[in-house]
């Protein structure tokens, strides 16, 4: 059982409207024919699977789309992530990823950081250690995607 004042209110925060909305109406779940790279990530423990496709313009993430199946947390995280990083430079995307990671490890300042925008709706995940992996799954795909870009030179 997670520690919190009351499991009821904390679960209601975890499964707030915004999360369920992204779960049920995922954004950027479309094909990306001119993707520079596609990265697949799965969580063998639960069977969550995420496929992230990125199109780069030099050091800019021009477009980000995803496919896959997973729980509301990993799906909402992927959906919001693709919105948050589209049009951003690698550096900026990494900053967002770092702040997001900090928020999930319980950093309250990060949870208030405007930089994270809608992603702050996922801050309650920090109280559910078993679910942090779910929220981070798309982000680890993003990191690999941006590294892969480095590795193969300008693939875009």
């Amino acid at each position, binding site marked *: *059982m*997670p520690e919190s004042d009351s*499991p*009821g209110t*904390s*679960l*209601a925060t*975890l*499964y707030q409207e915004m999360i*369920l909305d992204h*779960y*049920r109406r995922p954004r950027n779940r479309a094909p990306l024919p001119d993707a520079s790279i596609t990265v697949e990530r799965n969580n063998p*423990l*639960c*069977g*969550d*699977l995420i496929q992230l496709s990125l199109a780069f313009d030099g050091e800019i993430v021009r477009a980000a789309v995803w496919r896959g*199946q*997973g*729980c*509301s*947390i990993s799906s909402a995280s992927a959906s919001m992530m693709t919105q948050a990083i589209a049009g951003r430079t690698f550096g900026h995307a990494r900053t967002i990823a770092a702040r997001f990671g900090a928020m999930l490890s319980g950093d309250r300042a990060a949870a208030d950081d405007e930089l994270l925008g809608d992603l702050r709706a996922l801050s309650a995940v920090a109280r*559910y250690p*078993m*679910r942090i992996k*779910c929220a981070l799954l798309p982000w680890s795909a993003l990191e690999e995607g941006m590294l892969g870009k480095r590795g193969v030179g300008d693939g875009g």
Partner: protein
Amino acid sequence: MSSLAPRSDFPILLAHPGLRYLDSAATSQKPRAVLDAISAYYSEDNANPHRGAYELSVRATERYHAARERVARFCGVADADCLIFTRGTTEAINLVASAWGRANIRSGDEVIVTGMEHHANFVPWQQIAFEQDARFRICELTPDGRIDLDELRAMLGRHTRVVAFNHVSNALGTINPVREIAAIVRERSDALIVCDGAQGAPHIPVAFDSLDVDFYAFSGHKMCGPMGIGALIGRRGTLETMPPYQTGGDMIEFVLDYRTTWNVLPHKFEAGTPNVGDAVGLAAAADYLDGLGMDAVRAHELALVKLATTALGDVDGIHIYGPPPEDRSGVISFTLSDIHPHDLATILDGDGVCIRAGHHCAQPLMRRLGVAATARASFYIYNDEADIEALLGALHRARGLFGYAGV
């Protein structure tokens, strides 16, 4: 309906009074009698068995021997030397696949498993078939989650070298007709029959000697015993002609400079210092379960699973997998509307209800069911009607959180 075993026999249930433990298919809780037996062994009798000439070592050897006889009696094995202690089901199946498989599976042979196997009874066969250049085949299931016996009949033939299937499915709860399957296999082939009893022995009376399978494997931790001990039961003739699995101390007779001869059963398959403490714990678990009576255990689980199936069946948006409750062990595998099983498990945990969510180490089965994951509640001797009510209440709460009306 109350629990079959007194809940106060289980220290962990006393330590967490609000706990609704519905994950016994993953591992069972342990009665105090088992914990005490392990502690008493280490406090009073511990020494390395089979080695010392001193009295304490003799005592440890006797305790180990007695534990084997006790566990053999629990599962209807007259010849206790044919019960090999292993770390659990996984190691037991790997032992057979590796030791028997390498010596007996040849190119062109066929190894058959079913679409409902736990990875522990799937991957070792898939891999040994690959290594031996044999054909790996999967017997499909009927729509209600049973082994399709007609398909099995059609698959069998003179090339069939192994047929491996579970007694009870951990993911669906399906109880397979072991004797009937064995008869079908024997009629049409000379195949070795391996039964994964990880979900059988803890829940249903098992009489190995009358099952007509060649091997039966199970884990102590799912039947009130400690983690780290389980058993492989085989037939003397098969075990004696098989090469050993691991080599080293205890399992040898003579070690010559360039050749070694093997110890007799069961030692031939138990290399190294054995896990005496946990064997003693497993024997205490057998005492405990026999004290309740395995028929009563089965009847209790059946009553609970029927109750749960009726209660959960009324929840809007629920889908229950597997055959009707009469043909299931105390397992109910389900999905609820578009709520992912992981989200369900998190929400239920908020009410102290522990269920399992995921693929249950049965990815081939999940593909066949067409889902990535299910939620699974599983019952055992310490569960009661209040556990089912708590489960039901928590499911309604989950529906509410996900915006479904009519809570």
